[in-house]
């Protein structure tokens, strides 16, 4: 185990009867990093995370979280971590501040509810009943509850699922704040852009296994998929002989000949050469798009499936 590893997992397994949900996975999460677990529904993400949170027993393998065995030392572990679960509720008639005070009383240390309400922009809603809060406010309250014991390690299980883009952005900002405070965050999600934006490292899971792991950039670079350069010109290129640009692996023109698509392994170099060629030919440019392979592309390439299947 790495000395700065907050979580260390070796050959972790989980079965539900005959169904093997987690099939022997290994990974480490370092202090202060945002570690993403990405995968489609049923990939084993939630089972993995719930074992690490001390909520489920494992079937095999070993796991250490903050030095604790999540199965045998669950109370000590739960006292030190913050958890935002995917589907939870609070009593309809509890007020936001009461919920924070109540949950704060369960821990050996806690942050004042006033501070958390301000931080999560819920101060105006402190006296509102839970049933009257909007979806975004409920999720912010769930995050405030996860922070109530001032944890150094947080598990956020699909924290933005079903929320509108504005709330999602607010939650992304909060995760970035947590990261800047040097807290370790384990984030499960099936939103690609969320993982790409927030995570220092990502493990992609499918059918109970980690199919690949690394920084988002490393994973994108591992992809055989090339970046796609798409340019739109003012005049058709059908009549022009297109050159072989450096590192370009595939070139195609659309129907009216004004949209040129080039796949490249080194898009910056290819694009530069394309611009130079267009300039030499006196062809005017109308639009340019560059699309790098996403984690979704990596996932599709490895598993042959889409993340949201």
């Amino acid at each position, binding site marked *: 185990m790495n000395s700065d590893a907050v979580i260390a997992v070796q050959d972790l397994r989980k079965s539900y009867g005959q169904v093997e949900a987690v099939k022997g996975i290994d990974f480490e999460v370092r202090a202060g990093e945002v570690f993403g677990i990405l995968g489609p529904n049923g990939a084993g993400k939630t089972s993995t995370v719930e074992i690490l949170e001390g909520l489920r027993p494992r079937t095999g393998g070993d796991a250490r979280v903050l030095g604790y065995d999540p199965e045998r030392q669950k109370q000590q572990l739960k006292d030190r971590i913050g958890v935002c679960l995917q589907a*939870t*509720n609070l009593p309809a008639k*509890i007020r936001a501040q009461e919920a924070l005070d109540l*949950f704060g009383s369960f821990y050996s240390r806690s942050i004042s509810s006033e501070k958390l309400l301000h931080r999560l922009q819920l101060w105006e809603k402190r006296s509102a009943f839970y049933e009257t809060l909007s979806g975004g406010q409920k999720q912010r309250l769930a995050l405030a509850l996860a922070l109530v014991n001032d944890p150094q390690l947080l598990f956020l299980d699909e924290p933005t699922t079903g929320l509108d883009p504005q709330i999602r952005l607010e939650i992304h900002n909060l995760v970035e704040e947590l990261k800047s405070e040097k807290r370790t965050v384990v984030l499960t999600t099936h939103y690609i852009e969320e993982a790409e934006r927030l995570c220092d490292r990502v493990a992609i899971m499918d059918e109970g296994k980690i199919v690949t792991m690394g920084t988002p950039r490393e994973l994108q670079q591992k992809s055989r998929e090339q970046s796609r350069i798409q340019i739109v010109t003012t005049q058709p290129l059908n009549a022009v002989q297109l050159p072989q640009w450096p590192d370009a692996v595939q070139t195609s023109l659309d129907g009216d000949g004004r949209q040129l698509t080039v796949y490249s392994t080194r898009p910056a170099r290819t694009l530069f050469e394309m611009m130079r060629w267009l300039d030499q030919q006196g062809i005017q440019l109308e639009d340019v798009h560059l699309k790098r392979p996403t984690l979704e592309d990596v996932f599709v390439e490895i598993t042959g499936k889409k993340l949201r299947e």
Partner: protein
Amino acid sequence: MKTYLSLITIDLKLASRLRTVIVFTYIFPLMFFFIFATVFGVRQNPKVMTYVLTMSITLGVLANGLFGAGIRALQERELNILRRYKVTPITPVPLLVASMVTGWVIFMPYIVLVICLAHFIYHMPWPVQLPSLLVFISIGLIAFRSIGLVIASVANTMQEGTILVQLCYFPMLFLSGATLPAIMFPHFLRVISNFIPATYLVSGMQGIMLRSEDLVTDWRWVVALIVTTLVGVTVGTKLFRWEKEEKIRGSAKLWVVVALLPFLLLGLWQSYAGHIVIRTDIFGR
């Protein structure tokens, strides 16, 4: 201790905000209190007030225990509220204890109220053994709440829980002498009533009020209620489930029988000795 106090405080606040709690804990039993006091002509025979009072209190205890504790615990699991508690360092014990204490705190003002109403409106004499009566009702309430919690522990769904609660509630309501006067019962029903936990609650309260018995006189019933509480809390803790997805096997429902075992044994003993626990003398004017 901080956890227990916080949970009890919040449970009390939540209960005070729910209209159903107010209606089922105070208004409904009070309505029955006045209706039955009128129907049974309590003003002509204050002794019958004991019956009305017992009936009204038993209705409240059963509703508070089986529905208040049992169905509410099931609701919290079905709505994923307990799942939120699961990620914290607490065990089921503070949740169960808070449920017991809250039920007691909510219910005791009602007891004091109906005793006062019985005295001031219907001229029922103050029970000689008032402290024994209050302690006995408290023990009974806690015991029936623990039965409710066992039902919540063994039921996999709200539907199952409702069926189990009804299966316990109606026999206790009708065969314990709480609602139907035992004088109407044929002998075999009186024997069956020996096995119904609520019979001991009803009979114990009537004994304290009518014959000035105390907790020592009714010690076997007190012990049965306390043992039921202990078994109930133990089983409730052991089988406690935080999430609706955690299902329990069908045979686990037999734990309800285990929680009721003290009364089954007591019923066997009473029947073997030829005793009938249920009282038939109240309407013997």
